[in-house]
């Protein structure tokens, strides 16, 4: 049989086999990574886009550098905007270029009286990027308790984190993820020098404390929810160094109050009754169960290096997505049937080739999406319906060219027609493909979902046209294709 000698026959078989292998995992109940993911707009769920403040981070970094200059090099400096200024009367010779470079700094300007140093931009960008990666881990440990396996958390852009939690949420995770969780202990001080007043707006409790914290949350080792007389409290333990500081602190300040401050607001200010050695303590406030639990979780996960804000949040109920998909599938099936009926009525047998091509094109599209573990979203469904359109267009171009070649009495109307039409198809599809690739690179959210299915769709359509449609045209005698004019 000559059919066995045709490479398109074997390729077509290979494509079908590939589709079968690639699509199967979607129907199996295992944790295979080669499945199509469904976007939150389809399966329902929550997404949060978090932004870590660049300004606050920069400020913290500058403060750290100023104190490092003082400690390591005995140099006094001040922060002016995003620059550090040093008085030239000091011995600046220690601060050579090598030292500056190691600290990620650049000497910006040297006037008669002051030297100005700034952060090296590249170093700063890298610090932000590292800080964000670090924050991803902190946020991950904060939401870990949800036990949601499909939860996804990733860094996007320089200083943003995208958190996606499929399904319905009982707990309010916003509280957990949007807190910096900077814990400070300030000792009460009855003076107006270097002090400030903290007030708890809920309870009305207020206390005047030293500006500088005596102990910070950096020394925290663990925190957990406990009950004290049936009311929830958070117990914490400090590491060795922290325990020493805390012991020293409490022994010197018996009878004074110690303010426990989270992200700048006072939680409570208990009186120190006795020296606390061993580094264990309890934070009690007027907590509800959930509040105390959340506090324990965020303290345990550690504090974020900068302020964090939710810049986008979205909650999709499960019914909306389900309805959307059902309708999308109906729309695709009906569009498919309508187009098939029309094409068969217009092109007879060749119309049937088109119908088969569309089905295989869709199979290939889903296979590739499964293999790439791509995410299907509602705009993506629209992209798929358009893939059907592009596939039909390719068929129409080929058929019309073949018909034309009959009129022009070409020697080999089928092959000439296919080849010349395929150049046109390639040109027009590649242009759209390039545009879609750029869309994917720059786009966000729905634009991405749409462009990914368009990219894979165009590719599938090209492959199917080149292999399967041509195969049909090769094996079916020209008189039976319905393309020859009588």
């Amino acid at each position, binding site marked *: 049989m000559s059919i066995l000698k045709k490479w398109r026959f074997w390729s077509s078989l290979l494509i079908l086999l590939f589709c079968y292998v690639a699509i199967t995992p979607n129907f199996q109940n295992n944790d295979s990574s080669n499945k199509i993911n469904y976007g939150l707009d389809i399966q329902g769920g929550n997404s949060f886009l978090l932004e870590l403040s660049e300004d606050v981070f920069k400020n913290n970094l500058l403060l750290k550098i100023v104190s490092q200059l003082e400690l390591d090099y005995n140099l006094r400096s001040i922060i002016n905007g995003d620059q550090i200024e040093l008085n030239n009367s000091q011995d600046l010779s220690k601060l050579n270029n090598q030292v500056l470079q190691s600290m990620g700094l650049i000497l910006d300007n040297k006037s008669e009286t002051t030297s100005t140093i700034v952060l090296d931009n590249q170093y700063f960008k890298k610090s932000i990027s590292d800080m964000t990666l670090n924050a991803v881990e902190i946020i991950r440990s904060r939401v870990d308790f949800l036990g949601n396996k499909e939860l996804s958390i990733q860094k996007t852009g320089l200083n943003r984190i995208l958190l996606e939690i499929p399904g319905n949420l009982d707990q309010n995770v916003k509280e957990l993820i949007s807190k910096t969780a900077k814990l400070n202990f300030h000792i009460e001080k009855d003076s107006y020098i270097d002090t400030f007043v903290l007030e708890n707006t809920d309870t009305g409790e207020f206390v005047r404390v030293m500006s500088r914290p005596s102990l910070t949350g950096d020394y925290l080792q663990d925190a957990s929810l406990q009950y004290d007389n049936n009311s929830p409290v958070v117990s914490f333990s400090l590491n060795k160094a922290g325990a020493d500081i805390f012991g020293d602190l409490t022994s010197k300040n018996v009878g004074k109050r110690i303010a426990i401050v989270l992200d700048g607001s006072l939680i409570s200010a208990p009186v120190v009754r006795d020296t606390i050695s061993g580094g264990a303590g309890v934070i009690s406030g007027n907590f509800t169960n959930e509040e105390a639990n959340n506090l324990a979780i965020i303290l345990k996960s550690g504090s974020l290096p900068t302020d964090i804000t939710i810049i986008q949040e979205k909650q999709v109920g499960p019914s909306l997505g389900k309805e959307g998909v059902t*309708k999308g599938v109906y729309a*695709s099936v*009906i569009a498919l049937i309508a187009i098939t009926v029309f*094409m068969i009525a217009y092109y007879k047998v060749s119309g049937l080739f088109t119908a088969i091509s569309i089905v295989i094109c869709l199979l290939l599209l889903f296979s590739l999406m499964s293999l790439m573990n791509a995410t299907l979203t509602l705009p993506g469904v629209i992209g798929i319906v358009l893939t059907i*359109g592009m596939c039909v*267009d390719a068929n*129409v171009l080929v058929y019309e060219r073949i018909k034309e070649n009959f009129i022009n009495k070409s020697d080999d109307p089928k092959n000439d027609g296919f080849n010349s039409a395929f150049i046109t198809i390639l040109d027009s599809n590649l242009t759209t493909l*390039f*545009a879609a690739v750029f869309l994917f690179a720059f*786009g966000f959210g729905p634009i991405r979902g749409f462009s990914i299915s368009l990219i894979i769709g165009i590719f599938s359509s090209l492959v199917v046209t080149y292999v399967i449609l041509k195969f049909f045209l090769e094996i079916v005698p020209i008189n039976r294709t319905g393309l020859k004019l009588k």
Partner: protein
Amino acid sequence: MIDFFKYRKISYIASSVFIIITILLIFFKGLNLGIDFKGGFNVEVRSDLNNQDLNSIFSQIDSSREVIVKKELSSNVFSIRIESGSGDKVFLDVVKDKISNLQNVEILMSEYIEPTFSKDLIQNSLYALLSSILVIAFYIWIRFDWQFAFAGIMALLHDVFLAIGFMSLFNIEFNLTMIAAILLIAGYSINDTIVLFDRLRTLTSKEDVKINLPLMINNSIFLNLRRTILTSFTTILALVCLVILAPVNLTEMPIVFIFGVLIGTYSSIFLALPTISVLNYESVLKSRDS
């Protein structure tokens, strides 16, 4: 045979008029910007109440915020947009709390976008749009000639611009999904144009033919006319299915795209191809022959 080339002046005038109308629309009526580009809240609810009831329910939550209620096509789903203001952080929780007490309103989806982030999204979308148009122009320039690239991009921009005017005219919400629709229109428009360009290139590259560009342009259009009609028809067929059956909050995208298909077909035939002759492509062909 129809002399398409003859109508170029009429189509240039018609398109100019359309463009002026679009400019006036954008200038005076403006675009119905969604929260993607303006920031704020968007809540989709299912309810058997009417627009006014819902508006008063949501206005009561915070009277300082502007509330816009829109009923989605052919369903009992409403899209409620609430502007951004002070206390955004907890506002969504307040809304959900209030609505959970109501029997006849069910929240399907809720979304918040911070106004500063929406500025990023605008910038992002513009980058996406401009970069893909540049890539298209570059590809056509490489594969064809600069006259083709210029004519193709002009037709594409014309289509995109009129589609934006269409959205303004019918008060269709302009959001990220619509950016995707616009890009789709750009893709379709250029697709259609390139099919014709390709035909013109084949016709003009034949040797021992007396160059008559207007005639060749007419031929290219005429020979492809059936394909143009069939493809537009089948695409619109698929889109009509989507309009009738699309997910509730995505019905407008296919409608805009149907407009795009029609305008894209028009611009390829009546704007893109004649422009190649207007740009004096004849001289390129003649210099190649001699």
